[in-house]
């Protein structure tokens, strides 16, 4: 039981480091058991070091870097234990254009194993979707769906 957890944890850790490197174009990241002696009770720490930078606390990362690190962890989890579907509400909001493109191609790759429903305002994310739904408010203040073409969507 304890052995199972420690083994899965190590697999997830490797996955996180790999995904982080791919999303950031380098650098490294880890998840750590704060007290390795008590793997089933102890807290879990997260370490992230963008490429070329010195390792510092997560709090000093920028808004976009934090979001991308969280996205890396999410994708690492999906790689180790995919859920059948995943609903993502504007998780690309803080990413700059270069990072949102990388995020979008990741989404495309993972969509072979997981069905994604993404709410987004970002063109790059819309472009990897096979299905696009537009939602607007009628003047009666109720929601309706409209068909959307990509050029007018963002």
């Amino acid at each position, binding site marked *: 039981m304890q052995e199972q957890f420690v083994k899965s944890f190590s697999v*997830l850790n490797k996955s996180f480091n790999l995904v982080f490197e791919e999303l950031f174009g380098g650098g490294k990241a880890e998840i750590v058991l704060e007290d390795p002696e008590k793997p089933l009770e102890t*807290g879990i720490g997260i370490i992230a070091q963008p490429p070329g930078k010195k390792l510092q606390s997560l709090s000093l990362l920028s808004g976009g870097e934090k979001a991308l690190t969280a996205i890396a962890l999410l994708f690492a989890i999906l790689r180790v234990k995919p*859920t059948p*579907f995943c*609903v993502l*509400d504007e998780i690309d909001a803080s990413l700059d254009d270069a990072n949102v493109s990388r995020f979008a191609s990741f989404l495309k790759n993972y969509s072979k194993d997981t069905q994604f429903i993404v709410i987004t305002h970002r063109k790059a994310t819309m472009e990897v*979707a096979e299905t696009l*739904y537009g939602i607007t408010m009628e*003047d009666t203040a109720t929601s309706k769906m409209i068909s959307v073409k990509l050029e007018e969507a963002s």
Partner: protein
Amino acid sequence: MFLKRLDLYGFKSFANKLTLEFFPGITAIVGPNGSGKSNIADAIKWVLGEQSVKSLRGLKLEDVIFAGSKKLKPLGFAEVSLTIDNSDNCLPLDYNEITITRRVFRSGESEFYINKTSCRLKDIIQLFLGTGVGSEGYSIIGQGKIDEILSARPEDRRALFEEVA
């Protein structure tokens, strides 16, 4: 499994019935501020058994029922149905297609159905146990919530990691 269809009626800003079809791969939902996109995510959470009113941005149970507008009257109940393709038998029920339905009335009364058969909320929650779907899981990331995966205290992260490992 994968999601096939979401039917919304009277849920939050959806006064008129709306049906969304989903396919394997990526579906993007777009539109202006306040149009109802996050309400769709809330509907999926809710029909899967979300019990916390706060996590649906409400203050009370009836906040998920269409409250009316300047031009429309409030509705008396909200209903969401989620139809799932289960051909891979991921869910422990012997159906290729499973529809879960949740309904709530202004009185506070609730109804739950799996394939038109009345059931309890815990039957719906039970159905998804172990799939990563549900409130302890990571299958629904709400607006503004992606950072929480990092900012949670180390002890709080355990719930998520135990689900995974």
